[in-house]
C-alpha cells in the first residue's frame, strides 16, 4: 500500500479550482458563440426538409420530433425523385448559379491580375505622373474603398444603357472587379513588400527582363497572397446584391437576386425558400471550411504592420 506522501498545499488547490472554473467560462462563451454563429445555418438546412405542420409546430431536431421530407428540394427540382425529370425551376436555378460563378470568378481574376501588377509596381518603383507620386497613387487606389456603391450605381445604369451593356455579364464583371480592386491591391502590396528585392536584382543581372523576373520569380513566391486575395474577392463578388439588382433583369441575373426575388412572391413556403437559400450559400460554406486559412490570411494582411 502506497500512501501519497506529498500533497499540494491548500493555496495551490484553490488556484487549480480557480483555473478550472476559468476554463469552463472560456469554453462556455466559445460554445455559446459557436452556437450563435452556426444555428441560423443549421436552421436553414433543417427547414428545407420540413413540411408545413413541422414549420407551424416549430420542430427543430430532425428524426426526433419530425421526419425529414424532400419537399423543399423537390420544389427546386433537386430531390432524388425529381433529379432525373425536367424542371423549369431547376433550370432557372442552374442558370443563375452559372451566372454567379462566371461573374464572380472572372471579376476576381481580373481584379487579381490588375491589382497584383499595380501593387508590384508600387512596391518596387517610383512613379511620377504629374503631381502624383507613389503614395498619392496608392491613396488613389485605396480610396476607392470609401466610394459607396450607390454613388456609381445610377451613373452606371445610364452609361450601360447607352452602351447596350445593361443586363450583360461583362458589365457586372467590370463593375465587380472595380469594387474589389482596392482590397486586392491592399493585400498584394503587403505581400510584395515582404519579398526582398535582391531576388529580382539577381534575376535582372542574370539577364531576365523585369516582366520575366516578375512572372517567373516573384509571382510564385507571392502565390499564397494572390490566392488569399482571389478567395476574398470571390466571396465578396458572389454575395454582391446591390449592383446586380439594379443592372440586371433577365439574362445576367445572379443568384442573390434570384433568392431576393423569391422571398416576396412565395409567401410562407419556407421549405423551398430554405432549400434555395441553402443552395445559394453552400459553395461559400465549402470554401469557408476548406480555405479558411487563406481567408484569414487575406483579412489579416495590412492589419499588422
Amino acid at each position: 500500500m502506497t500512501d501519497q506522501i506529498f500533497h499540494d498545499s491548500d493555496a495551490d488547490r484553490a488556484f487549480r479550482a480557480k483555473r478550472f472554473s476559468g476554463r469552463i467560462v472560456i469554453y462556455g462563451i466559445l460554445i455559446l458563440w459557436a452556437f450563435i454563429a452556426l444555428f441560423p445555418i443549421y436552421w436553414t438546412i433543417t427547414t428545407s426538409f420540413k413540411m408545413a405542420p413541422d414549420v407551424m409546430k416549430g420542430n427543430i431536431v430532425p428524426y426526433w420530433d419530425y421526419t425529414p421530407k424532400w419537399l423543399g428540394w423537390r420544389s427546386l427540382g433537386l430531390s432524388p425523385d425529381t433529379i432525373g425529370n425536367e424542371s423549369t425551376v431547376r433550370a432557372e436555378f442552374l442558370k443563375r448559379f452559372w451566372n454567379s460563378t462566371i461573374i464572380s470568378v472572372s471579376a476576381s481574376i481580373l481584379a487579381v491580375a490588375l491589382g497584383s501588377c499595380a501593387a508590384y509596381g508600387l512596391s518596387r518603383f517610383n512613379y511620377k505622373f504629374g503631381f502624383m507620386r507613389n503614395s498619392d497613387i496608392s491613396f488613389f487606389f485605396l480610396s476607392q474603398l470609401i466610394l459607396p456603391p450607390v454613388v456609381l450605381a445610377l451613373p452606371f445604369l445610364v452609361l450601360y444603357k447607352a452602351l447596350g451593356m445593361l443586363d450583360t455579364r461583362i458589365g457586372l464583371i467590370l463593375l465587380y472587379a472595380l469594387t474589389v480592386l482596392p482590397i486586392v491591391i491592399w493585400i498584394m502590396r503587403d505581400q510584395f513588400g515582404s519579398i526582398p528585392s535582391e531576388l529580382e536584382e539577381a534575376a535582372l543581372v542574370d539577364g531576365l527582363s523585369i516582366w520575366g523576373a516578375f512572372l517567373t520569380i516573384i509571382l510564385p513566391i507571392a502565390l499564397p497572397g494572390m490566392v488569399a486575395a482571389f478567395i476574398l474577392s470571390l466571396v465578396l463578388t458572389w454575395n454582391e446584391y446591390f449592383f446586380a439588382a439594379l443592372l440586371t433583369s433577365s439574362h445576367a441575373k445572379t443568384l442573390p437576386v434570384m433568392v431576393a426575388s423569391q422571398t416576396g412572391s412565395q409567401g410562407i413556403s419556407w421549405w423551398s425558400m430554405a432549400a434555395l437559400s441553402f443552395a445559394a450559400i453552400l459553395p461559400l460554406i465549402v470554401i469557408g471550411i476548406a480555405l479558411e486559412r487563406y481567408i484569414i490570411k487575406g483579412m489579416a494582411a495590412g492589419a499588422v504592420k
Partner: protein
Amino acid sequence: MSTEGDLLHVVTADNISDQRKQFGKRIVWGSAALMFFVVALQAADQTGWISIGFETWRPTLYAYILWAICLCAGQVITRGEHGKRTLFILPATLFVVSMVVFPLLFGLIIAFSDWNLASPDGRKFNGWDNVRQMWTDPFYWNAMRNMVWYSLAIIAEYAIAFGLALLLNAQIKGRKFFRVAFLLPLMLSPVAVSWMIGKSMLENRFGPIARILREIGVDKPSFFSSPEIARLMIMLMDAWTYIPFMMIMILAGLQAIPKDLNEAAEVDGANAWTRFWEVTFPLMLPVSITAILIRIIFKLKLADIIINVTSGGPGGATDSVTSFIFREYRDRSNVGYGTMLAMFYLVVIVIAMTILIKAADRWMRPRY
C-alpha cells in the same frame, strides 16, 4: 517603405532609335485621334446632324479600348525599360480612371438635372432644384441619422469581436473548429442572411426566437413593427455577419504581440485585468483603429439586408442612405434626384472619413 529612388535600378541600356520613338508616338496619337473622331461622329449622330444609325455608344467604347492598348504599347515602344515599368501600373490606373472618374463626372451632370427614366421627356438641367428638394426631404435626413446610429453600433461589435479574439488567442483545444465556426457568418450572402434570420427565424408566429420569447413571457413578440426594435434587429443581423471580420483582424494583431511583454508584466505582479488594460490594449490600438475604420467603411455601404427584410420600414425607421436611394430609383425611376442624394452622401462620407483618419492618426501618435 522608402519612397526615395527605385528599389530596382535599370541595368540595361536601351538604344531606342528615333524611328521607333516616332512610331510609338504615332500610334498613341493616331488612336487618340480615331477615338475623338468616333466620339464626334456619334455625338453628331445623336443630335441628329447626320444620320448613320448607331444603335448604342459601343463604337466609342471600342475606340477607347483601342486607345488604351495603344497607350500601353506606346509606353514600351518609346521608353523601353522605363516604359515596361510604367506598364505595371498603367492598366490598373486606366481601368480605375475610366470606371470611376468618368462615371463620377457624368454623375455630377445627372445630379443637377431633372431626369426620370420612366418619363419620355429625357434629361433637362434644373440647377439647384435637386439640392433644395434634398434639403427639405425628411426621409433623406432620417436615413442619414440612421447611418449615425448604425455606425455607433460598431462600438459594441468591436467589444464583442475583441472578446472573441482574446478567447481564440488563449490556450484552448479545438481552436480550428471555433475559428471556422466563427468565420462562417461572414461567408454568407446578406440576401441569404436576410431570409435565414430576418424572414424565418425572426418570424412573429413560427420563428424560433419568437417562440422562445413567448416561453419567457413576452406577449405577442414582433420584431419589425416598432422603429427602435426594427433598427436594433437590423443592427444585430449586420453585426452577426461582420463581427468575424473585425475578430480576425484583431486576432492577427494579438498574435503579433510578443509573449514576453505579458510575461514580464506578470512577473512584476500585474493581474490579468491590469495586464489587459496596460499592455495588450495599448499595443492593440493601431490594429483596433484600422479595423474600426475599415468596418465603418463597410457599414456605410449597408443596404442589402435592409432592402430585403424591411425595405426601409416601418416608416423609414430602418432606412440606410443606400437603401433609400435604391427605392427612390426602383419605385420612382428618379435618376437625377437619386444621384444628387448619392453625391451629397459621398461628400459627407469623404469629409467624415478624413476627419476620422486625421483624428485617429493624432491619437495614435501622441506628442510626448
